[in-house]
């Protein structure tokens, strides 16, 4: 017998989602490791000099160049583009899944950060990630959007990438 921690319903052994309320009944550790906590001060990346444009053409796309990866990811920005890593155990899916780029090893949270669309700008928001989001070397305060510029350096945990605006013409 397994008592649901959410609604106290007695489920039979082997039931994975409470038959009464849908609560997950197997423990997280059983399936996927949670975001790895990195020792403080790792991955010291220096801020980059010079500023690109902050104006984002509505028809443009974003190129996310991940360090040590030859081909950038092209993103058509939505109202909100969530960056993280998909692991299937949580139902939430990031728009951009960084699993293939070593997201777990580098301490990227499942829901790490988001790129939001403004009038003609883009902003970056940390969504309460474990190891933090850095913009040009500076750690972002969670849930406080910061304007992105062409060529900015973003660090998610220990994963470093650069963002470029690509105008289509």
């Amino acid at each position, binding site marked *: 017998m397994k008592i649901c921690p959410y609604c106290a319903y007695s489920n039979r*052994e*082997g039931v994975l989602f409470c038959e*009464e309320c849908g609560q997950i009944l197997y423990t997280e550790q059983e399936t996927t490791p949670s975001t790895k906590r990195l020792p403080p001060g790792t991955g010291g990346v220096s801020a980059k000099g010079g500023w690109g444009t902050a104006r984002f053409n509505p028809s443009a796309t974003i190129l996310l160049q991940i360090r040590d990866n030859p081909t950038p990811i092209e993103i058509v920005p939505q109202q909100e583009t969530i960056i993280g890593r998909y692991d299937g155990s949580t139902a939430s899916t990031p728009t951009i899944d960084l699993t293939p780029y070593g997201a777990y090893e580098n301490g990227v949270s499942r829901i790490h950060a988001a790129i939001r669309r403004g009038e003609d700008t883009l902003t970056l928001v940390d969504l309460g990630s474990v190891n933090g989001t850095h913009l040009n070397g500076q750690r972002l305060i969670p849930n406080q959007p910061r304007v992105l510029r062409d060529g900015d350096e973003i660090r998610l945990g220990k994963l470093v990438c650069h963002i470029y605006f690509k105008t289509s013409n």
Partner: protein
Amino acid sequence: MSDLYAVLGVSPEAFEDDIRRAYRAAARRLHPDVNPHRGAASQFREITAAYEVLGDAVERARYDQKRRQQPPENQYFTLKVTPSSRIVPVLSEPQVLYLLVELVPDFSLTATNAHLNLTLVIDHSTSMNGLRLERTKVAAHRLIDQLTANDVLSVIAFSDRAEVLVQAAPLTDKNAAKAMITTLQASGSTEIYQGLQAAYEQNRRYASKNFANHIILITDGRTYGDEEDSLALAQRCVAEGIGISAMGIGEEWNDAFLDRLASTTGGTSHYINSPNVVQRFLEERLRLLGQAIVERVTLSLAPDPDVTVENAFRLSPSAQPLSHESDPLMIGQILPRLSTSVILTLQLPPIPQPGFRSLIRLAASGDVLWNNRGAYQAVADISIEAMVKPPAEERPMVILDALSKLSLYRIQQKAAEAAARGDIREATRKLETVATRLLESGQTELANVAMAEARRLSSTRTLSEEVHKALKYGTRRLLLPSGE
């Protein structure tokens, strides 16, 4: 011809003793005297037939010779079964185990452009008047555009009577067929049986093993008093190899009835919330039928006497609860390079001792449309190990993913059941739970629908049909691989 060695689960080099032992083991599990499950009886008959040949030295030699002369047959599809855990605990009480059953097609099989034998059944009762009927006509026209002269089409219009608009025949004159549909006017009430009966008569004229035979019902009304007759007719369709898919427009129609109609025949039922999307659903259906490489797929379940199948749900190619009171389950089609998958919920009896035990024997059959190869069967016999302290193991992602979404569908059903028996408090609580879980999985829109209804319920006292259908079919659609 099915491979008798595979049916018995022995190698072609097996000794007589092995064959006899395999048969005895099967008899102990599946003989009707010990096993009440319907699927067990039919599978045991097949096993007995195989044993009658292989258990007799002369017959076996003759069979072996015939077998050698035939080119080795392709494995058109295989059964892949994944349990929710590979090792279960030794336990003095019943426990639950989930099985993901995948019918995996051979990857060399490409789209066949299966010839279709399609019957459109259009409700033209008064309530269809206006946009609903007009959009349906347009959708029917588009459908006709996509068919070829190799396909057979018939069209029925029904209200309280049925009228054959287009007689079943290879579609050579598209314009004539379209013109007939254009003339349709709304009048009368809805009697689905009338429409289905006429559709059955038309469709069976061309029904063949080499075709994908399908009836597509488009309605917006509730039918009264003829549900049982319609379901009996659905059984006759199964016997002739005809599937039924149903599309309900708006809120009036009886979802439980249309679901059963589709589930009985291996079809799919859809909720169409706006007349504008009739076309999309119809196209989706056509695409699925037209690509089928295996049609009339069935899955027979023969659990051990002490194991019960509690639930069966098809996840792909389209999500649909399956009716498992009858055996075999009607599964529908297998598409190229896409597994058709079903998730089963089993209840296992108390397991007092560690060790291996058998659980269920599965037999999947279907007509291979690819090059008209005909009937083909794949068999899987599933057993599991029990341990006092099973090691921690990773749960298969596919199962977790499917179950998390399926549990949403189930709670939503419970909310509807509670509302139906007048337990408003329970219904409200269930709706709030659905809303919470939907929100967690990022389905904001559907979550808001559930939340708003939970708030309204205390004053309205009944679950609105619109919300009920939106949630039921909305959560069901979450199960599709694309998450559409």
